[in-house]
């Protein structure tokens, strides 16, 4: 049911967020691209396009399906032409098969988004304690979480159906570029670049380019795979604090 407050269209919030969320969904999907190494090296330092990226993607789809969990620490930089300095935030992203995701911003504010195939939850840290929000569009976030989960299981059909994907490499970096096929989506997102180690063994950064020249860079400072997260990490009623999760990750072999 469509509800309006004066000229404020609540339903529209879900529609608007979808575009931004779609970018993040791609990020979550694309960090999966680093899971397994490839023997694809270019001879020179200049980026050399890989003639046919389809075999790479198929190989990924096959191999990603066996990954159990992954932990990322990241820095997000929002570069707006209007501001001289980027708008920075820091956070973590945790993924556990088959469908659990935790995305947490740790600075300059604290916020947790949790999701699985059944539900989503968001918490904000206010006045020294965590508060669970009455989410405006749980079904929209739920849909996104579902897609993120599918992509992390290696089901990359969603990517190849909606994006033209190309791969280029040199000795220092491998770049996977995704360009939206839909003109409307290109109005918001020109392209998305995933920069990886040249052997595809780790993600360095993801850059989302917008048509007006603004861009968002997500730098992956640390990642750890096959982590056994402590109980409560994905609890949607009372999630375990990230410090405890981090300690557990740090102690893991």
């Amino acid at each position, binding site marked *: 049911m469509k*509800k309006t*407050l*004066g*000229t*404020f*269209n*609540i*339903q*529209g*919030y879900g*529609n*608007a*967020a979808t*575009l*931004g*969320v779609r*970018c*993040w969904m791609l990020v979550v999907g694309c960090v999966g691209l680093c899971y397994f190494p490839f023997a694809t090296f270019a001879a020179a330092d200049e980026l050399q396009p890989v003639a046919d990226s389809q075999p790479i993607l198929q190989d990924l789809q096959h191999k990603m399906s066996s990954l159990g969990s992954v932990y990322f620490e990241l820095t*997000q930089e*929002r570069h*707006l*032409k*209007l*501001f*001289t*300095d980027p*708008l920075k935030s820091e956070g973590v992203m945790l993924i556990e098969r088959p469908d659990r995701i935790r995305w947490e911003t740790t600075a*300059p*504010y604290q*916020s947790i*988004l949790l999701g699985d195939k059944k539900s989503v939850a*968001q918490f*904000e840290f*206010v*006045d020294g304690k965590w508060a669970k*929000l*009455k*989410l*405006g*569009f749980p079904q929209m976030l739920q849909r996104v979480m579902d897609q993120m989960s599918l992509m992390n299981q290696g089901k990359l059909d969603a990517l190849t159906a909606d994006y033209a994907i190309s791969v280029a490499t040199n000795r220092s970096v491998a770049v996977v570029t995704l360009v939206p096929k839909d003109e409307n989506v290109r109005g*918001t997102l020109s392209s998305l670049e995933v920069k990886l180690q040249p052997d595809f063994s780790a993600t360095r950064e993801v850059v989302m380019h917008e048509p*007006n020249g*603004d861009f*968002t860079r997500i730098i992956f400072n640390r990642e750890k795979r096959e982590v056994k997260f402590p109980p409560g990490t994905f609890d949607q009623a009372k999630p375990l604090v990230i410090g405890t999760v981090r300690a557990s990750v740090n102690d893991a072999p």
Partner: protein
Amino acid sequence: MRHNLFIVLFAFLTAGCAVPEAGTSYNPPALPHPGRLFPAEARITQRAVLTVHGRQFTLNGYVAKSEARGLRLIVTENFGGVLADVLVKPGGKVLVLKTGPPFRPAWVEKFIAADLKAIFDDHAKTDGSLRMLSDTHFVIERSGYELDLRTVEVNPGPQPAELFETDRAGNL
């Protein structure tokens, strides 16, 4: 709203307890405007929870503040998408430069610009909708919505002039 009424009631009651002496004038001390909490020139980051019809939405606000040039606010959703971009000139004139669903230009002009001025414009008239819970925590309550705002970062320093220029500011 109920809280505001309580404040008014409390003010009346306490006023009765402190009757000024005959023949003297009494001027209640002016409450500090929250705008004075911020440097004259700065970029401020705020995190907000907007509650409409019992539903909650999180937003980020980036405010460029210049005493001489005005205020510029960019509102983004969780994932970085720009939902509103508004410029308030020193005289109070509001220019809505960009909006995205759910915000429509009229809504941005009427409410978001008013909320921006309520917190950052020293000269703005107060309409009773703002509560200051601390130097970094504000609540704005208007008919139909509540905005819970926390200042999370203040970067003092002059902001680029083009942020406040009408003919160039819309290029977001």
